[in-house]
């Protein structure tokens, strides 16, 4: 049973927001004296009146009564919206600021990465900055020297080691900064959204390094990120914060789904009911536009919910101000990240939709639905691309849940299934001599 490496009891952090700031935003001694004189004169002139000049100070609890426990070797994600208190928690854990109440108990060295390139000075060369940054983050000189070549190789800046860092491109800068931080080797590593910088190649590299640290070196990692994908891959367990309180903990997958529900603006719509979308956010000329949608799989056993491998019927109610022919009418399905997965467009069928003036009903059927169970976002499109006219373009009308019917499946469903399903077969081949 691994022991507890971080124990937090009733931790709270309060900030006092003072609404008396002068124009520059900083408190000056002049203001301080001014306030004092004002207060004094108030008391003299109107004794007994409780002056509320203190009311301009507001208590803001960045964290309130947080209690949790983290064991050695765990990889924990921290999820929450901006302002939920995640960064405050990290600052408290790394002793940058002090708690207001409560206590934290930590065993072992903690290294906190709140920002890459802390302490980097633009006038110093890459080589000098590696030593400086490493020392600031807590490495000894011998340690830095030992890892110097690794750091340089990771950052890929050999050619520019002796150039002042101010001449580096932003990509090189970030690579070098992360390279130093990545070789820290503390017992507890806390990373705060630093992977949000850099290009795709770099992010992949950083991510690989963090996985390596967590898996192969047995260290405890605390990861704060808005990148749900990264969180899911790196951390099996997470904590969720909202407005300074710890509201949930458990499997990352479950928490992410919950987080998405909380933060999405969309409502989920049930099948076999007319859904009014006249008020939805859209663009286009609106000469012809979608007014309502009804959908379903028409399968009674699953109450017409859409399911993987089944049919998905749409009834689209379109209002047109005049009779016209529309070349492109499309039903689009996106995943939660906004990736377009399905684009069922009449343009590709070569089929023209003829609309009358007034209300029209168009039926569209997707069969089979090659999407795995999950929540998807519906988009709609009505346009005449040949004359560059877009009548109606809805990015996200509402959410649709695709469920698992199970009838097609013979075995268990794997974890981390992809979004798209496809039929496939497996057969072992007879080995006759060497392959190829």
């Amino acid at each position, binding site marked *: 049973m691994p022991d507890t490496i971080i124990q937090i009891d009733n931790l709270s952090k309060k900030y006092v927001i003072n609404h008396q700031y002068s124009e520059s935003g900083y408190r000056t001694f002049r203001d301080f004296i001014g306030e004092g004189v004002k207060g004094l004169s108030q008391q003299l002139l109107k004794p007994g009146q409780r002056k509320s000049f203190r009311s301009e100070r507001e208590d803001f609890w960045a964290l309130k009564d947080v209690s949790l426990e983290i064991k050695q070797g765990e990889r924990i994600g921290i999820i929450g919206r901006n302002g939920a208190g995640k960064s405050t928690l990290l600052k408290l854990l790394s002793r940058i600021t002090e708690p207001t109440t409560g206590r934290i108990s*930590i065993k072992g060295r903690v290294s906190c990465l709140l920002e890459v390139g802390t302490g980097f000075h633009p006038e110093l060369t890459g080589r000098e900055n590696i030593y400086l940054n490493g020392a600031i983050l807590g490495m*000894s000189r011998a340690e830095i020297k030992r890892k110097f070549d690794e750091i340089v190789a990771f950052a890929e800046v050999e050619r520019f080691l*002796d150039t002042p860092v101010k001449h580096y491109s932003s990509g090189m800068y970030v690579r070098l900064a992360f390279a130093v931080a990545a070789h820290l080797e503390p017992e507890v590593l806390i990373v705060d959204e630093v992977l949000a910088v850099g290009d795709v190649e770099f992010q992949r590299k950083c991510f690989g390094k963090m996985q390596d640290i967590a898996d192969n070196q047995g260290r405890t990692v605390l990861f704060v990120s808005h990148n749900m994908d990264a969180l899911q891959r790196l951390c099996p367990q997470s904590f969720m914060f909202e407005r300074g309180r710890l509201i949930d903990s458990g499997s990352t997958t479950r928490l992410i789904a919950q987080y998405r529900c909380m933060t999405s603006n969309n409502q989920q719509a049930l099948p076999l009911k007319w859904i009014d979308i006249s008020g939805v956010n859209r663009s286009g000329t609106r000469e012809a536009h979608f007014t309502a949608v009804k959908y379903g799989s028409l399968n009674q056993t699953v109450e017409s919910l859409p399911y993987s491998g089944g049919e998905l019927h749409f009834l689209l109610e379109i209002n047109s101000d005049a009779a016209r022919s529309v070349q492109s009418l499309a039903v689009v399905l996106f995943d939660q990240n906004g990736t377009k997965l399905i684009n069922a467009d009449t343009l590709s069928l070569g089929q023209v939709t003829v609309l009358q003036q007034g209300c029209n009903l168009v039926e569209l059927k997707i069969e089979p639905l090659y999407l795995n169970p999950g929540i998807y976002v519906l988009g709609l499109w009505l346009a005449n691309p040949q004359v560059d006219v877009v009548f109606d373009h809805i990015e996200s009308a509402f959410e649709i849940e695709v469920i698992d019917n199970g009838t097609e499946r013979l075995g268990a469903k794997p974890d981390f299934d992809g979004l798209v399903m496809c039929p496939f077969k497996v057969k072992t081949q007879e080995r006759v001599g060497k392959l190829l």
Partner: protein
Amino acid sequence: MRKVVIPEVKDMRTADQANLIIEAGRAEKQYWKDLWLYRELFYFLAWRDILVRYKQTAIGLAWALIRPFLTMIVFTVVFGAIANLPSGGVPYPLLVFSAMLPWQFFANALSECSNSLISNSNLISKVYFPRLIVPASAVIVSFVDFLISGMILLGLMAWYNFVPSWRIVTLPIFILVAFAAAMGVGLWLAALNVEYRDFRYIVPFIVQFGLYISPVGFSSSVVPQQWRLLYSLNPMVGVIDGFRWAILGDEFAIYLPGFFLSVGLVFLVFITGIWYFRKVERRFADVI
């Protein structure tokens, strides 16, 4: 390939497997342990500041020599030749320079120190280390300048064929007092500056004013006797007098009551400076 000079550093990481407890108001004992653990940061921050100062300069380190030298010339001309203040028998340049040395140290240390927290605000809000290191390393940087300027003094003594007496070995005492004076006032100003930004405007004023008030351009013997005790309220008076006595000889007798007053004041400011700094330190990251 240029050789990079990196200060020698011992292993900072101890097997810190002992439980670390973070609680409101609990930082005390851990703090002094941390100061030892993070000791090489003193070197690293000072090293960084010195390195950065001379990057991209044409004459680099020579600036540390030119500035005091030129000031000495100006003072010799103004106070010595023009105002014709007495010099107690030693060449006027020597008189001026033996006071310039500690004064420059104090002035630079004060300026750097009081602004050190603000200029390192990115470190303070993102990384943990005992914050006392930041103003201390600023004073160390000024000390390095002091040592370099000391070479001019040696040069001057050689030029005038002036051989200092045994008293020169007491110099480190006065250096220590100057150090404490700079740190003390510096800490107060640094801590106050974080909360109230107007304090940064006071510093150049103190430095300017102090240069003329302190016995740099002249010997403190020109101050009338009845005012000498009051005059010694300026902590640098004691230090400069001490420097002159140690370097130049017994004609520059130290006015002892004044000296002890100065030193006492320095000590008081130093201790209270550390106390105040520690008191407001926990709010630095929140306010900066």
